[in-house]
């Protein structure tokens, strides 16, 4: 299964994928002119997207790539992550030009902060890309911890009281959570080192090595370790009840960063969780971790449902909706059959696309209305027709209306719940989804179609803010009708990787 394939093309691709954001970050530091740093970031994130697509094709062909003596390991699961990171990253860099440009014109940020923003943006992409390509799970942990640090810097770009509060909570809770995850990783490493006599400490923490040795691990130790991993990475992935930092951090960040945090970073942490889910399934069967994933998923859905119902702030509502969708993904993986896992991985991509559309449009909306309150934002379709339309599409998609993409993955998830005979869990999921549908829908209709409170100048906020939204809406429509063939194969391969873990034990 883990054939060592060394090809110079792929190793060059992976290295340049990681180096592009670093170089672009350096260029931003050197040049400091507004126009130049914007263009550099757009070009570099576009290059990342292209390189990601090339990597995707070679992964489709070879299934798994191991390069540089096992430092980097890529399979279909990593490819899904890389493609979501690079797509949302590119669109977010496009949107940043308009959004941060406006903040700059309104003197909310000065030039120094703008430079810091783009430095942070590039480093954020770098740390997130490092997560899915590293084979060594310790390095993966370091990368995830680094994403926390970089994103804290981006959230505290504004010196408002609320952003200080949000970044402090985020830093503290995420760091404590992740230290639990490291405890778990070390337990797994220990289980590996006990079993393997010809053990060498450099490769002992590699995913390939651990997955291979997993069936021989001590079952009690694996259970204990997986709970640490679940709480640790679950905190960072925004699973309730460890989600308390999430609404603060995601709502206080600049909107392009909120899109990256909600759409991509949560998935990166969940990716870490998935890797250990596979190892634990190979070792003790998938039932243990599946049950835990379902429980956390249902709790997340429940908490998100009540919080969305009583929500007064647009961005906090979107943040809680991220908690909901991480819950859906987690429960869907936990149902443990091919259909559900396929749906979950599809949902990872769908959620990333829709949530970034919503954060982009709500960013423009709150810039126009100068408020984030739901009650004060009404009649968007009259004041800013195009953005309002985009926001409507995004809102309808996120609550699972057909014919948009999230309907497909939610449907797959529910049917897998019933066919794997998790009736109670599926019934609860339906209940919570209905509550969210009603309350999110109510807020959405009020915001889009209500009467504008005061006389406002009609008009959208410039082409560069519209363009990324248009791209996202077309992706939503296409993915709602059919999943393109290569993507379908990719997700199928990735689902098999997760599923085989369970079947082999």
């Amino acid at each position, binding site marked *: 299964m883990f054939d060592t394939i060394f090809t110079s093309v792929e190793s060059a691709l992976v290295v340049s994928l990681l180096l592009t954001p670093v170089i672009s970050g350096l260029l931003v530091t050197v040049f400091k002119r507004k126009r130049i740093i914007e263009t550099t970031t757009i070009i570099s994130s576009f290059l990342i997207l292209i390189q990601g697509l090339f990597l995707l094709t070679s992964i489709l062909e070879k299934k798994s790539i191991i390069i540089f003596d096992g430092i980097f390991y890529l399979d279909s699961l990593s490819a899904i992550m890389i493609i979501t990171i690079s797509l949302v990253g590119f669109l977010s860099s496009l949107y940043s030009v308009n959004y941060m440009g406006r903040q700059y014109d309104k003197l909310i940020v000065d030039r120094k902060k703008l430079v810091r923003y783009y430095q942070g943006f590039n480093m954020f992409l770098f740390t997130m890309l490092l997560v899915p390509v590293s084979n060594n799970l310790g390095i993966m942990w370091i990368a995830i911890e680094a994403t926390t640090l970089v994103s804290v810097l981006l959230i505290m770009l504004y010196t408002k009281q609320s952003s200080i509060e949000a970044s402090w909570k985020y830093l503290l809770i995420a760091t404590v959570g992740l230290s639990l995850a490291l405890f778990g990783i070390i337990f797994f490493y220990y289980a590996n080192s006990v079993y393997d006599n010809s053990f060498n400490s450099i490769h002992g923490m590699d995913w390939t090595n651990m997955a291979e040795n997993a069936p021989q691990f001590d079952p009690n130790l694996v259970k204990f370790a997986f709970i640490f991993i679940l709480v640790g990475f679950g905190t960072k992935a925004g699973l309730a009840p460890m989600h308390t930092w999430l609404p603060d951090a995601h709502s206080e960040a600049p909107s392009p960063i909120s899109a990256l945090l909600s759409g991509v970073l949560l998935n990166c942490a969940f990716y870490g969780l998935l890797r250990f889910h596979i190892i634990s399934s190979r070792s003790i069967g998938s039932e243990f971790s599946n049950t835990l994933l379902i429980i956390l998923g249902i709790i997340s859905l429940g908490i998100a449902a009540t919080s969305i119902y*009583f929500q007064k702030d647009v961005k906090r509502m979107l943040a809680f909706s991220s908690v909901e969708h991480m819950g859906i993904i987690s429960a869907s993986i936990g149902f443990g059959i091919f259909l559900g896992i396929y749906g979950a991985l599809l949902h990872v991509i769908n959620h990333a696309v829709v949530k970034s559309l919503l954060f982009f449009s709500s960013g423009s909306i709150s810039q126009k209305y100068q408020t984030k309150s739901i009650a004060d934002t009404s009649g968007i379709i009259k004041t800013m027709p195009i953005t309002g339309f985009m926001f409507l599409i995004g809102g309808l998609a996120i609550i699972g209306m057909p014919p948009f993409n999230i309907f497909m993955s939610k449907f797959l998830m529910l049917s897998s719940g019933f066919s794997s005979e998790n009736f109670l869990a599926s019934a609860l999921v339906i209940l919570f989804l209905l509550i969210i549908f009603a309350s999110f829908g109510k807020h959405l209709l009020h915001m889009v179609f209500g009467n504008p409170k005061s006389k406002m100048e009609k008009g959208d906020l410039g082409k560069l803010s519209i363009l990324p939204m248009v791209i996202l809406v077309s992706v939503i429509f296409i993915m709602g009708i059919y999943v393109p063939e290569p993507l379908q194969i990719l997700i199928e391969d990735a689902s098999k990787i997760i599923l085989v873990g369970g079947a082999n034990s």
Partner: protein
Amino acid sequence: MFDLPTQIDLLHVSAVILLIATFGIVVRRGFSDLLHAYRYQTIILAGVVALIAFVTGIWELYIVSALTLGIKAIIIPKVLFYVTKKLDSPIKLEMNPYVSLRISVIVSALLVTMSYFTALQLPISSDDTISVFLPVSFSLFFIGLFIIISRRKALSQIVGLLTIENGLFLFAVVVTHGFSLIIEIGLMADILVGVIISSILLFRMSQTFDSIDIKNLESLRDD
């Protein structure tokens, strides 16, 4: 070279000293006292790592011990001392924590007991260093967590976080006997950057709120 019983005694004694140093953090009120206590704890931790290196004969651990001494016992306290000196607020001590210091000591003692109990339950085969230091590393973790939730000043919370990090570090060294040096260096770098970022946050806090009391940080909520 010592004979085996002496080695085990040495391990036990060093574990006890490390625990006492941790209690030193729990009972401190003033910011600079707190940082001194943290520094002592970290120096002892570095010594413990060197001792483990000596007992197990793994030379990499000497480097790790030196790194701990350099980064965690010298650079990080220096950064935090600088921050406390520059803070605007005149009151530089933990005024009235959520849990009084006297009760804190009792709670910490209970946490240590709990750690020993938890460590006994674990299916980890007992090699000498593991059986001595596993409960200690858990104690450090729990006490750090307790400091974070029981203190009102942001600086005390940072020290709590660093105590957790020390516990984690001890755990990693003891259980894995030093995984590859790259990861250790990455860990240290993460901690260092984390401390620098939280120092910037401390500055911002004292500028905007005139204090680093976390009671100011309760405005973001859903009600």
